[in-house]
């Protein structure tokens, strides 16, 4: 009797706990909005809201704040980047789904044994998987590395010669870097949308005498329209919020974007440039918060607008009055445009592969020669720069973030998948907030962390970790939820059938069989934490390269730079390019290894099923 009632109490209290976890994302979004709004009120009051929005000058020495030029820069750069990246991304996805061959079909009948083996080996490679991994790798590369690539290769290696003023940075450089950065998002989402189109549409078009290209571009592509639009919108959100890479190639001067080589200063860049030197409590600080608030509102509008993309085809309005009277109809062979579009797909896919190859080559060539044992792990005794403190800080941030975020994220996922009624309003609201949270730019997370966690813990690893919890929460919830959904209902029924309580079923049956999915979530989160920089600079801190030491980094209540922040400070201080390249190489290797781990976990799961 008592046992039964205690189980009941346990079940109910567990349910309440899970609900609390799920509501946390709502709290987080509101918290971010409220804190940043509250901090920006002084600026809005002193400067005047419209003066702030439409003023064209920004000078913190005279306390004049107007963001119009920066807002325009952000918008123009985003639009151009989404056009460029959107076209390339969508066409790459089309190529991947419809034309990417499974394997090489190389033939070699010569006598050389070695070549024969090589050919056989090459023919075994699954090209689609490789392409998939290329996109994932591009998505995982930290933005600081994109920034380096942009400034060194793109700007100094190419654009500088096209710029009449021999600078090279500015609008065009920013657009190109942003375009490369949003391609993975757009490609993978477009790919999902295209794959979700029923195969019957494709077959139906072929059966009417369409060529493959005609069927793809006239039926399948329009049918995937809503998914592709969502992909583009998310790409826009990503481009608006990008900070570090943009900062390195934009030029950082407040100008209206009137030409391709005008140095500009998008909203994110302004915040990032001046937050470091801001006097706490000043109007300047409030003005930067207000800039962050404008950015946040912009991104919220963009992310939320995804919900309004019509999911299904709606017929055009108005009725068409038929008037017969066509003469004898002649059917001709047509279809040149789709054929051309097909080749566009191939070219775009080629561009993506080449960009990745260029980035990897650039980092490897410059980075590998500068790797040494002492550089990686040399302690305080080593005279030169060493990554050891950064490794330590990164490790701490990862551990503390995961300790906090995992239970919360898994709890929320359990509520969404095991307790909530699917499709209920409450679930929809929570989902919307999770999506919103995942769309918030990392610099805004940084501002929030600065306002809340830094006040509590001081600038420290703890403040950084708490901020990162919010950043990775959506990732954890989503991947865990996916894993839970894949657990067959029969398993749960079997457990209930034996008289197990719900909570016991979840912990003993459901969670263990969802473990690979949760492991994937952990690895993805680690990747996100490692590549993050904008959210960490004002929370965990950015140490001057010279003053970072293992003895200081060993204590998590101290401030410290993670790897990406460390790499950024090499750039910001303009000191040691060799070390920056070497750090980039280390980051690249870590990203690659993490991707590989995810790949193998997922492959194993697939095999089991």
């Amino acid at each position: 009797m008592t046992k039964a009632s205690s189980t009941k109490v346990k079940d109910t209290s567990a349910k309440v706990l899970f609900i609390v976890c799920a509501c946390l994302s709502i709290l987080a979004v509101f918290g971010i909005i409220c804190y940043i709004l509250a901090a920006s009120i002084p600026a809005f009051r002193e400067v005047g809201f419209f003066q702030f929005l439409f003023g064209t000058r920004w000078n913190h020495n005279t306390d004049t704040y107007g963001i119009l030029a920066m807002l325009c820069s952000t918008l123009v750069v985003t639009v151009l980047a989404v056009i460029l990246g959107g076209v390339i991304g969508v066409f790459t996805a089309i190529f991947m789904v419809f034309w990417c061959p499974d394997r090489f079909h190389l033939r070699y009948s010569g006598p050389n044994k070695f070549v024969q083996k090589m050919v056989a080996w090459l023919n075994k490679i699954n090209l689609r998987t490789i392409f998939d991994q290329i996109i994932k790798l591009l998505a995982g590369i930290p933005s600081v590395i994109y920034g380096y690539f942009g400034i060194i290769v793109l700007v100094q290696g190419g654009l500088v010669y096209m710029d009449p003023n021999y600078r090279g940075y500015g609008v065009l450089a920013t657009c190109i870097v942003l375009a490369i950065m949003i391609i993975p998002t757009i490609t993978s989402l477009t790919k999902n949308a295209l794959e979700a189109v029923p195969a019957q549409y494709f077959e139906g078009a072929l059966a009417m005498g369409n060529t493959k290209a005609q069927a793809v571009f006239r039926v399948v592509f329009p049918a995937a329209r809503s998914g592709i639009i969502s992909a583009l919108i998310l790409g826009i959100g990503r481009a608006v919020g990008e900070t570090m890479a943009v900062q390195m190639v934009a030029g950082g001067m407040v100008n209206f974007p009137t030409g391709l080589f005008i140095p500009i200063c998008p909203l994110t860049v302004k915040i990032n440039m001046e937050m470091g030197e801001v006097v706490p409590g000043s109007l300047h600080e409030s003005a930067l918060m207000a800039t962050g608030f404008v950015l946040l509102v912009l991104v919220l509008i963009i992310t939320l607008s995804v919900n309004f993309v019509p999911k299904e085809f709606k017929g055009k309005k108005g009725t068409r009055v038929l008037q017969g009277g066509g003469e004898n109809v002649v059917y001709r062979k047509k279809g040149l445009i789709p054929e051309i579009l097909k080749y566009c797909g191939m070219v775009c896919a080629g561009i993506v592969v080449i960009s990745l190859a260029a980035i990897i080559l650039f980092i490897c060539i410059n980075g590998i020669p500068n790797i040494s044992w002492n550089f990686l792990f040399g302690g305080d005794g080593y005279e030169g720069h060493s990554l050891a403190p950064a490794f330590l800080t990164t490790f701490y941030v990862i551990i503390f973030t995961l300790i906090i975020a995992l239970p919360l994220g898994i709890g929320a996922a359990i509520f969404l998948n095991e307790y909530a009624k699917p499709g209920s309003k409450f679930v929809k609201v929570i989902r919307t907030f999770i999506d919103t949270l995942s769309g918030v730019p990392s610099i805004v997370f940084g501002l929030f962390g600065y306002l809340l966690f830094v006040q509590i813990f001081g600038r420290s690893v703890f403040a950084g970790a708490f901020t990162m919890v919010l950043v990775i929460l959506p990732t954890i919830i989503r991947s865990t939820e996916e894993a839970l959904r894949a657990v067959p209902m029969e398993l749960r029924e079997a457990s209930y059938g034996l008289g197990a309580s719900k909570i016991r079923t979840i912990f003993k049956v459901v969670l263990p069989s969802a473990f690979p999915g949760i492991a994937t979530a952990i690895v993805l989160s680690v990747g996100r934490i490692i590549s993050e920089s904008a959210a960490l600079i004002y929370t965990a801190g950015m140490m001057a390269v010279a003053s970072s030491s293992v003895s200081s980094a060993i204590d998590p209540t101290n401030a410290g730079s993670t790897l990406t922040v460390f790499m950024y400070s090499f750039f910001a201080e303009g000191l040691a390019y060799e070390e920056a390249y070497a750090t980039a190489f280390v980051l690249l290797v870590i990203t690659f290894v993490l991707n590989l781990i995810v790949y193998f976990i997922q492959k194993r799961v697939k095999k089991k099923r």
Partner: protein
Amino acid sequence: MNIFKKKEAAQTEGTAEESKQKKEKKPVTLDIFDFSGDNAITVRDLDLFYGEFQALKKINMEMPKYQITAMIGPSGCGKSTLIKTLNRMNDLVEGCRVVGEIIIGGLNIYDRGVDLSALRKNVGMVFQKPNPFPMSVYDNIAYGPRTFGIRKKGELDEIVERSLKQAAMWDELKDRLNKSALGLSGGQQQRLCIARALAVGPQILLMDEPTSALDPISTGKIEELCEELKKDVTIVMVTHNMQQAARISDKTAFFLLGEMIEMGDTEQVFSEPKHPETERYITGRFG
């Protein structure tokens, strides 16, 4: 061994692709077929393989013009496979290999250099599950003509009207031409698919179990429609429904395990089948 198989598959794919590309370079007329003979389709010594597995064995049959030929047989007997070879939809299946001849309008459609677009324009297909495109009714029907270069509104309107009338749907749909085709009922969707196939003026219509996903009333409508349509087109139909074959077809072919056991006038096949297996199948189904 494994690699070998894949190479083979690659080769057949390769030739199909190559021949496609070759044709697209020349300006082609789509009327390469000559349907003046008595038989719309002649199949000669057809073998079909999926990799190692032989799905069709030495099929020989003739399908007369302006008649309905029904293909019956238990699941997995190869009748759907056969109907898909008639407009080369099997090209989509990896590892599918065809030996033998299928002669349509005087041409062996498996010859190198046969234009797939021209073939499929002349040999339309209706699938088991209705598959209207996610567009309006009008755009669904105008889809085929548009891809064959017809852009003038007047011409398109005429084609849409004619095809819908041919499919006996004009009165039902004339006021909802601009509504999404996905909003129609299953039976309407299937008839719309028939109208869509008719819009490019095919000589032959292939139907792969066109009524198996529909209710009896819609099925009846489609059967009526077939009777009506055979004035203008030759129909080849796969069906699981024995009564349907008996009701509407002129010729019936019975398949078992990849072989054609018997083919003849429908009345004869159903009343006095020559083959004991045919009899067993038919009576088994009826009794």
